[in-house]
């Protein structure tokens, strides 16, 4: 109910602002909706959205799985931490744009280069979060598992993983929002389709309704995925915690 109210408020402010500054700079909601419908019925909207989502899914999965594994290793093994730390600091401070441009130069304007570049941007934060989570693991529970001779996999699944789950959820959430932003830049610079590409075209033509139509649809999809996928996972990871009053 509150969400609906804030959405209505958003629309109202937009509409009023559009009336004040004029349709060329800020088109009114119906004008944008019209473009949305036109793009949707031609199929272009879904094509571009699909391409972007596929890139997000691939890059996100790649970065999360690789980052979690490396982070876990660095949290557990001191030597790995020592070796990996300088690389991690380098990656953390490398601007996204540099990674994308270099990837396109070295690997060509290819799909693989785009996905790798997006994943590399997300990778270091996933590593840092999971390393933190691994360092915070409760040693006394590890001892319990070893005294009761729990097999490795069972101990990992029931003792370690539940402790890491909140960290994985946090990393997924922050990582997803990072990937949403970077994927558009990567598409703008070197892909012939996707929401980022369309926004680039709209920018060149100064076609504000089209720009807004694509951005807002994209934002809506992000919102839906966040509420339907990420938040329930986060809640599930924390289910056993005694509920606060």
């Amino acid at each position, binding site marked *: 109910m509150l969400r609906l109210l804030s959405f209505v408020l958003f629309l109202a402010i937009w509409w009023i602002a559009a009336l004040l500054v004029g349709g060329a700079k800020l088109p009114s909601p119906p004008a944008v909706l019209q473009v949305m419908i036109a793009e949707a019925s031609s199929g272009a909207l879904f094509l571009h959205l699909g391409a972007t989502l596929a890139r997000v899914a691939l890059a996100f999965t790649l970065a999360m799985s690789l980052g979690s594994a490396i982070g876990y290793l660095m949290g557990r093994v001191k030597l790995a931490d020592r070796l990996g730390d300088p690389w991690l600091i380098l990656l953390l401070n490398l601007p996204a744009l540099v990674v994308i441009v270099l990837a396109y130069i070295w690997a060509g304007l290819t799909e693989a280069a785009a996905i790798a570049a997006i994943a590399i941007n997300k990778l270091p934060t996933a590593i840092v979060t999971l390393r933190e989570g691994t360092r915070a693991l409760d040693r006394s529970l590890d001892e319990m598992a070893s005294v*009761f001779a729990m097999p490795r996999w069972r101990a990992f699944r029931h003792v370690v993983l539940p402790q890491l789950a909140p960290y994985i959820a946090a990393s997924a959430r922050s990582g997803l929002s990072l990937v949403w932003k970077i994927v558009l830049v990567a598409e703008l610079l070197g892909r012939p389709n996707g929401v980022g590409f369309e926004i680039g075209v709209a920018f060149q033509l100064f076609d504000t309704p089209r720009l807004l139509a694509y951005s807002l649809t994209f934002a809506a999809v992000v919102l839906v995925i966040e509420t339907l996928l990420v938040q329930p996972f986060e809640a599930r990871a924390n289910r056993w915690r*005694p509920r606060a009053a």
Partner: protein
Amino acid sequence: MRLEVDITGKTFRSAAGGTHEVLAPVKFALQSGEVGVLIGPSGCGKSTMLRIILGLDHDFAGHIARPPEARIGMVFQEPRLLPWRSVEQNVRLAAPDVADAKLAELFRILELEAHRDHYPGELSLGLARRVALARAFAVEPDILVLDEPLASLDDALAGRLRDEIATLVASRPVMTLLVTHSLDDAVRLGDRLFFLSPRPARIVAEMPIGIPRATRGEAEIAAIKASLAQRTQGDRTERDAS
């Protein structure tokens, strides 16, 4: 089966950089079916000794001979349950082979039936301790290690659990190592009592109890306690004299 403990020393490096000695040379052995009881002042190194004996801490001088295939049931000083698993899952994860009937029986004895599906965060400390006991019993251990298992339970329940431990020990060839501050528990359960000195711990007195556990009545127990009191009294006067 036989457990041989021969620790020649254990020191901890403190965070400040100093070292402090926690265990002096400690040597004893335990047979299958025997209950050894460690009694000593708080902070003397009992839990540290148990961790070494169980192979959780390798940073010590000396040698431990533990039967390699021995199944271990342990009740840690704190319950150490998995907060994200229910009571029943906690037990089953440690003892995957436990039969349903056996588990039901354990939960009945420990009065945990109503709490099977609760999470550890929803239990009182006494309840959590009982779950830890259930877990240790459920694995049908060859070596049972109990670090103050009856603390924070009321007398009646502690008494019943003590009887339960005695029954378990009698029912299978298990060697038991019990840490307790209660002389009563020690005399009722133990076959051999080891009295430890303050840190660094060493064994100041070893006292075997000749009467089998099953035939120890209240009169015998009182007699053992009296002789113990006399001995410690004697030790004290000796020490005062020297």
